C-alpha cells in the first residue's frame, strides 16, 4: 500500500469542499497530479495544492492507496465521500460529511468530526476517536434510505438524530447520545455505551438499539417484554428488552409482526 500525505499548509478562509480527497481519485496519480485535483472554497474552484502540500504517490488502485491528512482540517468537509476502498487517516479534527455515502475502505479520524458524517453509508468503516456532531450515519435530506451497511465507531459522544432511517450496518457510540436515535429505522444496530437523552427509536419499524446507560425520556411507544442476557460489542450484560414503536405500522414476517428492539442494561 502506498501513502499520500496531505499537509494543510494554507488553511482556507471558508469551508473547503474536499470530496475529491478519496483513494478512488488519488489511485494511479503522482503527487503532482494529485495537487491539481479540484477543491471548492465557496464559489471558487482551486487546485488541492493551493491548500495542501502533497507528498507521496497514489497506489495502482484505490485499494492500495492510503491518505494521511495532517494539520487542522476542522474546515475541510466531505473527505472520503463515496469512497469504495483504501484507507484515510485524519490526524486531527475534520468538518462535516466525512465518509458520506461511503461504500468501502476505512477512515480513521483521530480528533472530532462535525455533523452528517457517514450519511447514506453503504459499507466500510468510519472510526472517530473524539466526538461526532449531529446526524451521524443518518439519511441524506429527504431520503428514506439511511445507512445501509458498514460500521461507524465513535469513541466520544454523538449529537442528535443519529441513524435516521437506518436500514443496515452498525453504529457504536462510546459516550452519550443526544435526542433522536434511529428515527424511522428499518434495520441495522445502534449501540450507545453511555446515556441517551430521549426519543430513542421513534417510528422505528425494525432494527436494534442498545443503551448501556439510561434513557432520560423514554418513548411511550415501547413496551417491555422481558429480560435477556446478551453479548454486545464484546461486553456481556443483562438487558431489559422492549419492543416498539407500537404506534408505527408493523410488517408481518412468517406469520408474526415485526417490531424494533430496544435494550437497556439492567
Amino acid at each position, binding site marked *: 500500500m502506498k501513502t499520500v500525505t496531505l499537509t494543510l499548509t494554507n488553511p482556507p478562509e471558508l469551508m473547503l469542499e474536499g470530496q475529491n480527497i478519496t483513494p478512488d481519485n488519488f489511485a494511479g496519480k503522482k503527487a503532482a497530479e494529485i495537487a491539481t485535483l479540484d477543491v471548492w472554497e465557496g464559489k471558487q474552484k482551486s487546485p488541492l495544492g493551493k491548500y495542501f502540500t502533497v507528498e507521496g504517490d497514489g497506489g495502482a488502485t484505490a485499494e492500495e492507496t492510503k491518505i494521511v491528512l495532517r494539520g487542522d482540517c476542522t474546515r475541510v468537509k466531505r473527505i472520503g465521500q463515496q469512497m469504495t476502498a483504501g484507507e484515510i487517516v485524519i490526524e486531527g479534527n475534520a468538518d462535516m460529511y466525512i465518509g458520506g455515502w461511503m461504500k468501502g475502505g476505512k477512515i480513521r479520524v483521530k480528533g472530532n468530526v462535525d455533523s452528517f458524517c457517514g450519511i447514506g453509508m453503504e459499507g466500510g468503516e468510519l472510526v472517530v476517536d473524539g466526538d461526532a456532531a449531529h446526524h451521524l450515519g443518518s439519511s*441524506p435530506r*429527504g*431520503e*428514506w434510505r439511511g445507512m445501509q451497511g458498514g460500521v461507524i465507531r465513535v469513541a466520544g459522544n454523538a449529537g442528535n438524530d443519529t441513524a435516521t432511517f437506518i436500514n443496515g450496518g452498525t453504529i457504536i457510540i462510546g459516550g452519550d447520545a443526544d435526542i433522536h436515535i434511529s428515527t424511522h429505522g428499518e434495520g441495522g444496530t445502534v449501540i450507545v455505551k453511555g446515556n441517551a437523552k430521549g426519543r430513542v427509536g421513534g417510528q422505528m419499524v425494525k432494527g436494534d438499539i442498545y443503551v448501556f446507560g439510561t434513557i432520560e425520556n423514554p418513548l411511550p411507544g415501547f413496551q417491555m417484554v422481558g429480560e435477556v442476557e446478551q453479548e454486545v460489542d464484546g461486553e456481556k450484560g443483562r438487558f431489559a428488552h422492549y419492543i416498539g414503536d407500537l404506534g408505527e*405500522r408493523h410488517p408481518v414476517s412468517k406469520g408474526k409482526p415485526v417490531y424494533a428492539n430496544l435494550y437497556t442494561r439492567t
Partner: protein
Amino acid sequence: MSELLIKNGFVFDPLQGIKGDRMDIGVKDGKIVEPGTLSSPKTIDAAGMTVMAGGVDVHSHVVGPKVNVGRLFRPEDKLFKSPHKSPTCSRMEMGFSVPSTFKTGYDYARMGYVFVNEAAMPPLHSPHVHEEIRDTPIIDNAAMPVFGNNWFTLEYLKNNEIENNAAYTAWLLRATRGFGIKVVNPGGSEAWGWGLNCVNIHDPVPYFDITPAEIVKGLIETNEYLGLPHSVHLHCNNLGNPGNYVDTLESLKLAEGYTPKNEFGREQVLHLTHLQFHSYGGDSWGNFESRAKDVMDYVNAHDNLTIDMGQVTLDETTTMTADGPFEHHLCSLNHLKWANTDVELETAAGVVPYIYSPNVKVCTIQWAVGLELALFSKDLMRTFITTDHPNAGPFTRYPRVIAWLMSRAARDETMKTFKWLERTIDATSIDGIDRELTLYEIAQMTRAGPAKALGVSNTYGGLAPGMDADIAVYALNPEDMPSNPAEIEKAFSRCAWLVKDGIVTVQDGEVIAEPAKRTVWVDVKVPENAQVQRDIYEHFLRHYSVKLDNYSLFEEHLHNPRVIEVDTTE
C-alpha cells in the same frame, strides 16, 4: 429574414404521408417553405440522417403546483443527479424525475421535442402554472385545466345543462388560459374530500348525485358543442388496480355514438391517457396480469378514440396526479412519503415517490403492458408514446421506449434483467410479439399523431410548407439502421439538430440557442349567458377563498401567447 435548407435527409412526415424519401426542407422566417423559393440559405447537411418534425408530447406533467411539490419534497432526486452547468446553456440544470423548469426545456429540446402539453392544471393555481411555463425554455407549452371534479361542472351536468356547462368551460379556459378539457378520476377526486372514491363509473359522487359515466358523457357533449381543438382528455376511474380493464372498457364505451365536430382536423372524441395503468386483469397483486389485448382490440375497432401509453421505464420516479385517492392508496402500498392537497371546489392532487424495480413482478408486468398497447395497435396515428412523466418514468426515457418499440432485441435485453421473468411472461403477451416498429411509425406516435389529436396539426407535427419550422434531425440512417438498439436510444436522446421556429436550437445534442417559447391556449367565444355569469359570481361570493376579480389570470402571468380561436356564436 433568415433562410435555412436542410439537405438530403430521409424525411418522415406522416401528416403528408412521406415515408423516408430523400428530400430537402426549406425554412424561411420561421416557417417551412418549398426549397426552391430560397435565395441564399444556410445549409444543414442531413445526408444519411432521419428528418422529422419537432416532437409533440400529448401528456406530461412538467409545470404547476404538484410538480413543484415533487421538486420540493424530493431533494434526493437532485443529489448526485444534477449535472454541472452545461457549457452551452444559460441556466443550471437539476433533478432527474422532477427536473427543474430549465432542465425540462433543455432535455425536451435535446430529444427533438418542441411542444409539450401539461396534462393537469388546477384552475385556482393557473398563475403558478403559467409562471413555470414562462420559466421553461425553448418548448411551447399548453396546459389543460381539470374539469372532472369541478363543482360547477358537476352541478351543470347533473341537471344536463350542456349549454351552461359549455359557457362555464369557455369562461374557465379563458380565466386560466387553458387548452382543453382534462378529466382525472371523474367524481373520485371530489369523493376523496369525503375520504371516499369512485372505483367504477357507476359509483355515485357523494352529495352531487351524479356518476363518473354521466360526467364523461356530459363533457364529451360539451367539448363537441364547443368544437375545441382537442377532445376530452380522460384519466379513467380505478387507476392502477388489478382487474381495472373492465372499468376502462366501460369508460371507452362512453364515447360510442359521438362524432367529432371541430375545424382542427381532430378525429377523436375521447383521448384515453396513460392507458397502461388502466389495462390490468386479475383480482389481486398475486394474479395480476396484462389485459392490453382486450383493451387494444376495442381501441383498434373504434376510430373515435386515441390513447397514449404511460410506459413504465423501470426507474425510480415521483408519481403525481390529481387522483388524490390513488396517491393515498399508493403510499399505503410502499410506505414512502406522501403529499396530498385539496384544491377548493375544483380538484385534488397527491405526490408519492415510486421505484419501478426489475425485481418486482408487478413492475415488470406493468412494463410489458405499456409496450403491448403500442405493439397491438393497428393505427399508430392514434397511439402515442408517453411515460405520463413523471408517473411511470421520466420523459427523458422516451428514447429508451422508442428503442424497446423498434427492437425485439432491446426488449429481450431488458427482460433478461427481470427477477420474475417466467411469471412476467405468463401474465403478459410480450414474449410472443415480434413486431418492431419503423421510423415512420415512431414519427406517427411522437409528432404527427399527437399533433392531430391535439388539433394543432396545422402548425405542429409536420413538415408541410406554411407550418412552423420545427425540425428534428436524428443521426440514424434508415437504410443502415444500427444493429445495437442502444444506438437508437442514443440517437433519439440527443438529436443531431433541432430547428425551432427556424432557429438552430440544438446541434450535436447540445442546446446552442434558446429561441422564444410560447404559451398555447384556446379562446372560445360563446353567446352571453347570464345564468352562468350569475352562478360564477354567486359561487365565488359564497364558497371560494379568493374573489372573482383575483381569480382570473393576470396578463403578466401569460408569456408570449399563441391563441387558438374558436367561435360558437356564429
